């Protein structure tokens, strides 16, 4: 009787399928947890409430503006807020990332090494930190002062970037 590849290497295939199942379960759980954390950033007690958020838009040419909004629905993310207070140009990436890449704010567009970097004030250290996630993933449970800073960067390493307020303290860990 002819035995196929599957029959000849049962142990190999079994282990491979088992490991793949573990990987899919682990990655699926991480993705689910990530999506849940986005949807439940505002827990039940805060649903329907509003928050105050200060946003700095620094255009990089010594022009900047502070926008203080006091009536932001607490289930908004920072992209929603930016879209509300400025004229945003962005590229949307659908699932699984489901995020916006902000390419322009109020007519100032990414150009060569110049791009819009995203910052927040870490309340614990009272210093600016370049966020490690995009605007869609920022809810107002952690940060209440945020900034968009148009600057040139010659590296993806955010520790080399300048904070949005000249001379202000900057941290890499919040």
């Amino acid at each position: 009787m002819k035995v196929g590849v599957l029959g000849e290497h049962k142990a190999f295939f079994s282990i491979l399928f088992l490991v793949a199942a573990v990987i899919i379960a682990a990655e699926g759980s991480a993705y689910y947890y990530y999506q849940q954390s986005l949807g439940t950033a505002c827990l039940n007690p805060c649903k329907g409430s509003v928050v105050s958020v200060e946003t700095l838009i620094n255009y990089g040419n010594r022009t900047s503006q502070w926008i203080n909004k006091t009536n932001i629905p607490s289930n908004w993310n920072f992209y929603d807020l930016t879209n509300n207070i400025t004229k945003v140009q962005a590229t949307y990436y659908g699932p699984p990332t489901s995020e916006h890449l902000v390419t322009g704010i109020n007519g100032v567009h990414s150009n060569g090494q110049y791009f819009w970097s995203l910052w927040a004030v870490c309340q614990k250290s009272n210093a600016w930190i370049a966020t490690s996630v995009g605007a869609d993933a920022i809810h107002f449970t952690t940060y209440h002062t945020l900034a968009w800073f148009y600057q040139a960067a010659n590296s993806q390493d955010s520790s080399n970037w300048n904070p949005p307020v000249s001379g202000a303290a900057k941290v890499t860990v919040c």
Partner: protein
Amino acid sequence: MTITTVTTSRASVLNRPSTKVLIVAVFTALSLATDYAMTGFQNIKVMDTLVFLAAFLFGFRLGIGVALLTRFIYGLVNPLGPADPITLLFVMIGECFFVIAGAGLRGTFVGSTFLRGSREYERLTIVLSLVGLLATFAFDVLTNFASLLLKTSSLYQALVVGNIVGAPFAVAHEASNALFFAFVAPAMIVSAARLGLWSPRSDLA
């Protein structure tokens, strides 16, 4: 008139240092070209499949050469700006997982079954797809960890938070690589075998 016949076997040609350099250069160029062409697709790259194939077809050392060179150049000359040294180091190490997978599968029943021309391609396709998934998962876990290594207060936090925040990107990377390994890799292995560029026993390493 004297006619001299020089017979050179394919194996000896493939074993020449110049040929090895050529193979690394061609695979690196292919990987980089596809990387730049697919810049608009986040975390979807044919590069990993090509690195795997280089190791599967031509051995561990050539695979390592392609992996390190490709990642080094792509890390420095990147449309999003050069990577920081820590990230660059980790993605170079991570890319070696595809080399280990390719070199590990080479010489096993997978290669000989392809050569035999059996009708079990679909099962081998599943093997390649799952091996691709495994190597990509290892790469993503390592690089997501590295991305938050200097931004969190503990290694554990970097591992957990990095892999949760990076999950959407990892899902895109792993799903696309599982498809590339299932459809691109078998076609290239069969083509290489038919062109006489590869046999499971030919070892350049």
